């Protein structure tokens, strides 16, 4: 079993998919059953009846309580046993572990660590998601058969877009432009500007740019499982490099990663953009992201297979590995200090001009 940061809010699933029925999930190598209660809150219990270990998700929801599908032992949303059929007297003190949840940005977030430390105010938020003038579109829950930190490598790595995403997010103009990075608090920020270059296919398609553009990629990796990619494009005359983002197209591609186990991750992605679009355009934009993220999935899954085949073999370490290397050190530090760690609300830092 791998070790994980536990005292943090992890994205678990889309809020839209949680209703008054049992749904089964797996996160940090633990099975969890989830349902929505009448007050709108989300209950999350270990998906394991303490009696014979049948998954509770194979049982049924009786009002606000979960009834095991084997002998009818019944637990409330906090995991306390409230009924044992055929056994006289009040139910004994038997319980199922329960996990705090909260919701934000269309997602259910779960706290797998010490419940006493779970403060909903410290869940991730991107203010633009809620702001007028910005529009948010939910994407998919993309299952990737790869370790979440290999996905995090990819999300601390703007260099790969010049090679992996040529039909959507990248073009060859950026191939040899060095990537910069810095770490602060529990964040690794990786970025580069590409100046006076053709727009990437995605912005060429939606942006109606006539000539060369200045464009940027800022990858904010908020350890351990959130990545916000701020990327945008402006006419070279717009002064974007001086901080003027008024006349630009800007998108936050948000990746909310559920580490399922050592070899599986679920990337809940959505995009938030500063331009209005009709439903059809939003759908086409999401489809473009689907193409790009499927490209990442193919790369990461092939790597995962090779990592297992060649376990222990040394990998070459090149300049662009600086940010991913620091990312892994940061996660290691967070894991080592998990017991004492205070979860400060992770936020995307507002950036200075280039």
């Amino acid at each position, binding site marked *: 079993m791998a070790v994980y940061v536990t005292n943090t809010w992890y994205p678990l699933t889309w809020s839209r998919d949680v209703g008054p029925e049992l749904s089964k999930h797996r996160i940090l190598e633990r099975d969890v059953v989830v349902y929505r209660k009448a007050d709108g809150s989300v209950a999350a219990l270990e998906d394991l009846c303490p009696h014979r270990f049948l998954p509770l998700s194979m049982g049924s929801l009786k009002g606000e309580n979960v009834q095991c599908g084997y002998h009818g032992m019944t637990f409330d949303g906090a995991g306390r046993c409230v009924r044992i059929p055929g056994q006289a007297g009040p139910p004994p003190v038997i319980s199922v572990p329960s996990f705090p949840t909260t919701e934000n940005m269309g997602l259910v977030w779960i706290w797998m660590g010490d419940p006493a430390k779970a403060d909903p105010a410290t869940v991730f938020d991107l203010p633009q998601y809620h702001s007028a003038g910005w529009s948010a579109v939910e994407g998919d829950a993309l299952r990737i058969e790869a370790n979440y930190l290999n996905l995090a490598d990819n999300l601390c790595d703007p260099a790969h877009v010049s090679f992996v995403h040529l039909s959507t997010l990248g073009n060859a103009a950026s191939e040899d432009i060095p990537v910069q990075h810095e770490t602060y608090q529990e964040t690794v920020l990786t970025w580069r500007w590409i100046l006076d270059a053709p727009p990437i296919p995605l912005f060429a398609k939606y942006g109606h740019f006539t000539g060369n553009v200045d464009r940027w990629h800022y990858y904010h990796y908020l350890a351990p499982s959130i990545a916000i990619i701020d990327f945008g494009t402006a006419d070279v005359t717009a002064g974007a490099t001086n901080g003027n983002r008024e006349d630009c197209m800007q998108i936050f591609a948000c990746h909310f990663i559920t580490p399922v186990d050592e070899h599986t991750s679920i990337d809940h992605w959505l995009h938030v953009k500063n331009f209005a679009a009709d439903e059809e355009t939003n759908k086409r934009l999401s489809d473009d992201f689907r193409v790009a993220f499927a490209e990442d999935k193919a790369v990461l899954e092939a790597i995962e297979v090779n990592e297992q085949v060649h376990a222990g073999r*040394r990998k*070459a*370490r*090149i*300049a662009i*590995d*600086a940010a991913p*290397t620091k990312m892994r*050190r940061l996660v290691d530090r967070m894991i080592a200090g998990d017991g004492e760690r205070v979860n400060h609300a992770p936020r995307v830092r507002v950036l200075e001009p280039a």
Partner: protein
Amino acid sequence: MPKIIFRAADGNEHHVDAEAGDSVMQAAIANDVPGIIAECGGSCICSTCHVLVEAQWAAKVGPPGEEEDLTMEFAPERAENSRLSCQIPVTEELDGLVVQVPSEQA
């Protein structure tokens, strides 16, 4: 031009004329010094330009920085006097510097 002496594990020495302002690693690469690989090109990431600084030069070269110290976790022959040569700037003061090249890099 400051001279840097790279001493291999077998005792062979490579005397190199280095450019002040370059790193010790760059001086080695420019002169094909065996055993200095510099996979990451001087980004303090790969630990394949690891050298051991001769005792009499330790004070002038100074200790590794924080990142360098972490990166040297990868160095198989790490010792008290370990440095990554990409993180040592060549100066006139280092004229005559002697560093040992380990028999194995990360």
